[in-house]
């Protein structure tokens, strides 16, 4: 309001003008009133209950609502966090070994176990041959041929021995099936060859330097 405002109204005069003033009665108003439905009286249940008017100002309600909201939100967050350390429970898992049943194959023919011997001999021979391979081509061919004849001889002798041993085993199995004979490994002849550098004296192509 304006500070320069001066109140000039005569309130006493206003009161006289308005307080005891009257309006003319008209019949239409009564007819309208008759048409108007009477006010529905409030239910008895509402009348029984006492009216409670608690004057709570906005300055109280708003902080309470905020406190409740913040408290609720923080409690919701704390519900996700566990402050107590739970003791670690060590549980031993028992090792259960499942028995695997392997089917036993009963074979009438005994398994041959002498084959590795031959292989050993062959591998030994081949190792000796590799040593010889450093010689020139012509000499190598000769040495290889000699070695091959030796290998063939050894192989034949081994085969004969194997046959003999088989026959003996069969005989022993018939008589004494449980006993195993120890086989003496064959002693192969060691081939000695010179290990000198065979490339000595050979002409090597010289690289042309540009």
């Amino acid at each position, binding site marked *: 309001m304006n500070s320069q*405002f001066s*109140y*000039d*109204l005569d309130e006493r005069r206003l009161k006289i*003008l*308005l307080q005891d003033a009257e*309006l*003319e009665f008209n019949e239409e108003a009564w007819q309208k009133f008759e048409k108007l439905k009477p006010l529905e009286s409030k239910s008895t249940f509402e009348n029984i209950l006492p009216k409670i008017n608690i004057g709570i100002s906005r300055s109280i309600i708003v902080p309470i609502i905020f406190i409740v909201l913040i408290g609720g939100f923080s409690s919701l967050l704390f519900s996700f966090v566990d402050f107590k350390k739970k003791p670690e429970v060590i549980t031993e898992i028992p090792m259960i070994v499942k028995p695997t049943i392997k089917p036993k194959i009963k074979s009438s023919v005994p398994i041959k176990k002498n084959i590795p011997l031959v292989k050993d001999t062959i591998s030994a021979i081949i190792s000796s041959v590799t040593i010889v391979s450093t010689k020139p081509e012509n000499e190598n061919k000769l040495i290889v041929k000699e070695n091959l004849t030796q290998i063939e001889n050894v192989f034949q002798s081994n085969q004969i021995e194997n046959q003999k041993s088989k026959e003996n085993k069969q005989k022993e199995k018939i008589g004494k099936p449980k006993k195993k004979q120890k086989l003496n490994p064959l002693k192969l002849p060691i081939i000695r060859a010179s290990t000198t550098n065979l490339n000595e004296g050979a002409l090597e192509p010289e690289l042309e330097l540009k």
Partner: protein
Amino acid sequence: MTEAELISACLKNEKTAKKLFFEMYYSKLAFIALRYCKNKVQSEELLLNGFNSIFNALSNFKNQTELSLEDFSKHELISFLVKEIKNIRNEYYVASTVKAIEKKERSYDLFLDNFYVDFNSINQNILLKSLHELVPSQRLAFNLNIIEGYNLSKISDLLETNEQTVKSNIEKARFNLQKTIERNLKLNQNEQPV
């Protein structure tokens, strides 16, 4: 028919007694309703409902002996009007803000404000018109305090607000009423033929 007989007949819901009561107090109560409401249409509507509430409350009149029947019916109607006007919330709480935003045409006439207003020449029509232009909260406070003569605590109980709010509403009502009366008086003088 005596006052007691009239009341007992009204309580028995007799049509003739009710009509008699209506005719007796209509003129006074109608003007009260016109003071409190924003226009004649609203006042007529609320007056009829107010009569209904008075008839319902007549049973309480027998118990008390302080007030006459006229004063009792006036008091009953005023409390009903206050309650109803306050319940029209879109008017009661929004009207003041809408009025504040309203744009008014500026006048650059320097002698316009020097217009002499004789407040003793105010008639009832201009006063009622100016009252209707007030915001509902200010109109109620002005009527209750200045015309009816209720004290601040009673008004604050009726309006369900604190006394400070009522006091400020009365002050605003005084300022606005004077301004509206001035304006309406000027308009009234301009309209009159020279």
